[in-house]
């Protein structure tokens, strides 16, 4: 059969162990208190105080490391492009990143990513879930993990917001075993969710009054009930209320036109600028998404066009976060599910290459202006220590002051590590 395989990673993760657990009544009963699922409440309390935030730029389909952070100009697989110097002496990146090159002194690049998944269907999920050792459960995406481990910021906006092209919705699948409420609130094309605005017939005071009545009803219902449904239902109403109060976040007409030009008038530029506004408003974790990077054909013209947009948006947001002093508490990550093959196929494209690729980061907890790891001269394989996505999760948690060796998830009594337990943070990029 020539049909594409249907296997999805989350289905592969249903193991006997989970199913036995489920049968015994352990799985599925998920503690729903904001941080109640953590093993050590004291640590949880401590973390709750921090207002660290994350901007996660997901470049879906696979950005070519050779056309971005790890150029190998004038080599067999180097492609047509040049490397250019950056604001950090000695560090060169692709000429397709001229603006980002000027922000290099804020960045931390890892050039020695070596991950496991060679397909999108597996990679997109596994990479964003940190590919922990198989524990028989579906792990949360990084955004859901942060939403669970850190909760919303003090301003009580949804902790995990996803600005993306296409449709809106509440993407509960991201949350895995943490339970639906840690999913992503997706704003399709950055637009406000439907029914965000209170109709004229309901005044602000009336709305507050009826919500109070609803809360009282839920409080009464919750007595002597399993907490799951009632908590989840109350939670989505709280979040809806917060969003209604911040409907200005979606009013892009108020943005400074100079910013709009600087970030780019394309989707990625607009969504990244909106992501910055969300961070400023107090969203804990903002994911900005660009699709269409799977350049199996016409890779070089493709990257010439795509990288220009990425460069514009990424450099602008790093610059703005730095200018506002926000890099001290915001972690910025830009990455794909894998890199692209060194070898160039007959369609003048590059295929999937998890063996040796790069991730760009900036911000809290990280050194500034560093490159960690290296590939060999041809860019085919990693020449230094290889880092899997588990190393990155450890690194990011460290940046967010979460000790991945102490903090665990509590999946209905089953303790689960928050990052791959055989891996460690990458000290070379940690401040």
């Amino acid at each position, binding site marked *: *059969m020539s049909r594409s*395989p*249907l*296997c*999805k990673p989350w*289905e*592969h993760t*249903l*193991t*006997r162990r989970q*199913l*036995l657990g*489920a*049968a*015994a*009544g352990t799985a*599925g*009963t998920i503690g729903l208190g904001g941080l109640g699922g953590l093993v050590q409440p004291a640590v949880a309390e401590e973390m709750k105080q921090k207002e660290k935030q994350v901007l996660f730029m997901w470049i879906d389909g696979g950005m070519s490391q050779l056309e971005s952070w790890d150029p190998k100009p004038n080599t067999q697989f180097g492609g047509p492009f040049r490397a250019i110097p950056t604001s950090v002496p000695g560090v060169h990146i692709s000429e397709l990143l001229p603006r980002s090159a000027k922000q290099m002194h804020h960045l931390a690049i890892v050039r020695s990513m070596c991950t496991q998944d060679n397909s999108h269907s597996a990679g997109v999920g596994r990479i964003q879930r940190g590919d922990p050792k198989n524990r028989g459960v579906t792990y949360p995406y990084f955004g859901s993990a942060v939403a669970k481990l850190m909760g919303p910021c003090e301003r009580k906006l*949804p902790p995990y917001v996803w600005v993306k092209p296409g449709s*809106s*919705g*509440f993407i*509960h699948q991201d949350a895995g075993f943490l339970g*639906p409420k840690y999913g992503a*609130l997706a704003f399709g094309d950055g637009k406000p*969710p*439907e*029914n965000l*605005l*209170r*109709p004229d017939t*309901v005044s602000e005071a*009336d*709305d507050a*009054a*009826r*919500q109070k*009545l*609803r809360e*009282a*009803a*839920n409080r*009464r*219902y919750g007595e*002597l*009930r*399993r*907490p*799951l*449904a*009632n908590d*989840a*239902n109350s*939670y*989505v*109403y709280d*979040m*809806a209320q917060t*969003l*209604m109060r911040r409907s200005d976040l979606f009013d892009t007409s108020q943005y400074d036109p100079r910013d709009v030009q600087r970030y780019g008038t394309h989707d990625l530029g607009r969504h990244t600028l909106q992501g910055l506004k969300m961070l400023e408003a107090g969203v804990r974790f903002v994911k900005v998404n660009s699709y269409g990077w799977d350049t199996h054909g016409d890779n070089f013209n493709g990257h010439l066009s795509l990288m220009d947009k990425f460069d514009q948006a990424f450099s602008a947001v790093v610059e703005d976060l730095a200018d506002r002093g926000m890099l001290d508490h915001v972690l910025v990550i830009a990455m794909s599910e894998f890199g692209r093959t060194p070898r160039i196929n007959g369609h003048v494209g590059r295929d999937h290459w998890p063996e040796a690729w790069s991730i760009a980061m900036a911000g809290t907890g990280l050194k500034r202006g560093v490159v960690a790891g290296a590939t060999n001269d041809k860019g085919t394989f990693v020449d230094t220590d290889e880092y899997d996505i588990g190393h990155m999760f450890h690194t990011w948690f460290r940046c967010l002051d979460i000790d991945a060796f102490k903090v665990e998830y509590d999946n209905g009594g089953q303790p689960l590590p928050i990052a791959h337990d055989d891996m460690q943070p990458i000290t070379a990029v940690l401040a």
Partner: protein
Amino acid sequence: MPHRVRSLSYLRVLAFAGLVSGSPVLGSIAVAEELLHQRIDKLIAASAAGDLAARAEDGEFLRRVYLDLAGRIPSVAEARAFLDDMSADKRTTTIDRLLASEEYSTHMAEAFDVMLMERRGEHDEWMKFLQTSFAGNKPWDQLVREILAPDAENEAARGAAFFYTKRLERYGQQDDDMPGLVRDVGRLFLGVDVQCAQCHDHLFIDDYKQEHYQGLYAFVGNATIRTDQPFPAIAEKPLMKEVEFTSVFVQVPKSTGPRLPGGEEIELPLFKAGEEYEVPPDRKTNSPGVLKFSTLKILAEQLPRAENEFFNRNIANRLWWLMMGRGLVDPLDMQHSGNPPSHPELLDLLANQMAAHKFDIKWFLRELALTETYQRSGRLPAEGTVPPATSYRAALEKRMSAEQLLRSVLEATGESTRVREEKEGAPKFKDVADRFNKALANPPKEPELEFAPSVKGALFLSNDTLVLSLLERHEGNLVDRLIKLDEADAVAVELYLSVLTRRPNDEERADVREYLDQNGDRREAALGHLAWALLASTEFCVNH
């Protein structure tokens, strides 16, 4: 007396599954003296390992049984009548009355549409097929047979083909979903998900072999959509050779003919080219012809039958889930030896009884509804301990589908008649239904198995003008009735009975009084707020 001799292939099924406990309940139908619902309660009680919740109060029971059997909450009149009814058998008579109602077949059609199509799309002929099936209490095996080998000549049942055609549809760049179809035949009718065995033996589930995926594929792989009919219809190409496949891991070429998981491989007859048809296809009349060897017909004969233990267990488990909120095997489509049921003996009993009663869905649901297990309260037996969901010691909260919510909101607000009959100024039922679906149903292909509230849904119930319009005063609706009541206490009772199918407690009565007192000059708005708060509450939004 049902046929109890195990065929060879049945033994194979058991060996494959390693599931059957060898319990004496097998084959003991003839000697059974107790009714099924009594035996269920005994088995549940025997493994409860803790206090059982009290019997649900009348209101709690009534709301649940209406939602489960009629797809809506009871009207205020129905609630009042039931609560005031002093007869001892009022629960049983209500169950029987609901099972006999037209609303039962509508609700079951909607519930099975969601289960079998998983929000892939709608079709009137498909809904007609389901509706008439449940109205006539069509045995489950026959219903499945009609789905698996749809008959375009049978006008009442031809819509069954939608199960195939929707999955085989192509649109835009989207190819047909044949792998999804193969998978769904296994998931929905056998309770086994062979998806990951498409390309290799399942990595974690030893029972699921690549042969099982490929064997199922051999049955349905030649189905194609007929484009010559305005209704869903399929044609079938002859299966000329075995399905060849190679594991992506071991690279050893294998092949198989049609074969059910655990069943015998079916030998392919050899036909000379051109002789595969009993009645050859005719291009002029667009007739697809009649095959001498139709794998779909064989599938329809072999899969839905009492000898197929997977089939029996799957429907028993799914109907149990529908009523009780959790499958004895959970997830529903993960029947295999590594995932035993929470109550193995009970599942055996249910599966066998289902088969023994010729797959009589109504009888089965009635037995479940009559159990103490079903009629237990959702309030936990003791403070501080949450009994495991698998114990069934307290009733589990169930998701309300968009359809159930819609009908219940209309019932609660007293707007059901006005909207359904499209009275002047009333929104059209279809429009309201579409809005509820959009806001509250899952996206396509995502099973709706558990309560999963969303911000989108919360914003919908909070701000959608159509929803809010139901809380404005119209003649005879809830707010209108409430306005006409002078006493705050009477308002509270009418409100709670209408929305939550119970009378308010003292605290709730006091709250209603206080809120009305605070808003004495704007009674209509205040009543709207009180009603809205109950509609948005968890107590209303889940089937508890």
